[in-house]
């Protein structure tokens, strides 16, 4: 197993990063850190995806000198998917940060548990 993990080092690192991001997202109570964890998680997925397209000794999929041979270029599909993913994750980051600003403006704290308590209290007071 260790040899297999070493062979797939990119993917190994990617899933470890995914786990770290996941844990940060669950564990951290600070909203901004949570959002960073989210970004780490999604970037790890993109690394995982991108590593699947790479083939030893082949070049980036940009046609040079009119060569259109399959053996000359790496797999273009993961690149396209990751491109989509990066843009999606920046949109999410924007929305989450906007939510953070609004919550901070109202409750003056970034701690999500604290915020939830304050929100509950404000209903009853």
């Amino acid at each position: 197993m260790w040899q297999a993990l070493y062979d797939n080092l990119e993917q190994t690192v990617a899933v470890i990063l995914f786990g770290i991001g996941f844990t940060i997202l669950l564990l951290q109570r600070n909203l901004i850190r949570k959002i960073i964890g989210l970004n780490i998680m999604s970037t790890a997925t993109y690394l995982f995806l991108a590593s699947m397209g790479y083939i030893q000794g082949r070049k980036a999929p940009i046609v040079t000198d009119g060569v259109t041979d399959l053996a000359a270029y790496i797999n273009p599909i993961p690149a396209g998917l990751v491109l989509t993913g990066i843009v999606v994750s920046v949109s999410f980051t924007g929305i989450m940060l906007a939510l953070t600003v609004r919550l901070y403006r109202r409750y003056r704290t970034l701690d999500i548990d604290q915020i939830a308590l304050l929100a509950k209290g404000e209903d009853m007071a």
Partner: protein
Amino acid sequence: MSKRRSDWEQRPQARFLRWMRDGYGALDDQITTSISQPAAPRPDQEAMEAHDILVGTHRHERELALDRLAHYDLQNWANTRGRKVLGRLYAVLALLLGLILIYFLLNTVAFMPRFASADVPANNEVIARYVEKGLEETGAINIVAGMILDYRAFDTLGESTVLFIAACAVLILLRIDLDDHGQPMQQLIAEESDDRHYEPKNDRILQGSAMVLTPIILLFGIYVLFNGHLGPGGGFSGGAILSSGLILYLNAFGFQKAGRFFTYKIFMWVSFFSLGFYGVAKAYSFYMGANGLHSGIPLGTPGAILSSGLIMPLNIAVGLVVACTMYIFYALFRKGGL
């Protein structure tokens, strides 16, 4: 309140009857019976008992008293040790969950196809056509651009829509002239202007370097945008570079100058035209493709700047959407408007 009466009150059938009759039994009983004795005397104990006798006559007051009680308990709870222990437990559980996830995923990776070898399942007839026929069928030298804007164009349409909808969501959240109900608007505006106090006003170094850098950045962005089908880059990166140039200009010269050429109206119309163009162009091509007709868009000579059919205009449209979205994100975060 006599002893016998309160015994009866505690019985389940009595509680059920009361609940059917009054409609708010279950939780109240939990609150009154399940809370352990807090350190300080609870504020409304007396009032509660009085209300218990008068059930049915002053229900809404009783409701209010209950609310106050629950609020008090909530505040108490926030400072108890129980909450801290629960928090600790949650942290341990989360950490454990993360570790288990990593363990399982590592196990999976060990069984995944070997990295960098040519005989992985992903190396199949799909990419064979993309690579071998891509140039001929889409006219794009950059195979990735050909793939995302021609073969799998629907995904990319969805992706531009994600940007658009994200910009709208941030507008809902942060646009300031439309205020939320609870807060007075004046205070918010004061806060926003406060933010601007931190801005270095007429900083010569910043403005000088922005004068030099902004045109270069914008030019580079346009280059990346227009060469999306010829080399790495394309709509997304080009748009992001364009928006970074705009943000630099905004930072150096302030909102007044930037507002002269970029307003909310402009944002909406640019998004409208780019996305509308994208949608209509792709709808035409999808419709033609699905019904087996030729779209009749010339592909041009590969390698020329005006080639590969719709890919370059689409790249420009995507780039404009990206640039507008990123700029409006920034402007909304800074000032809550344009």
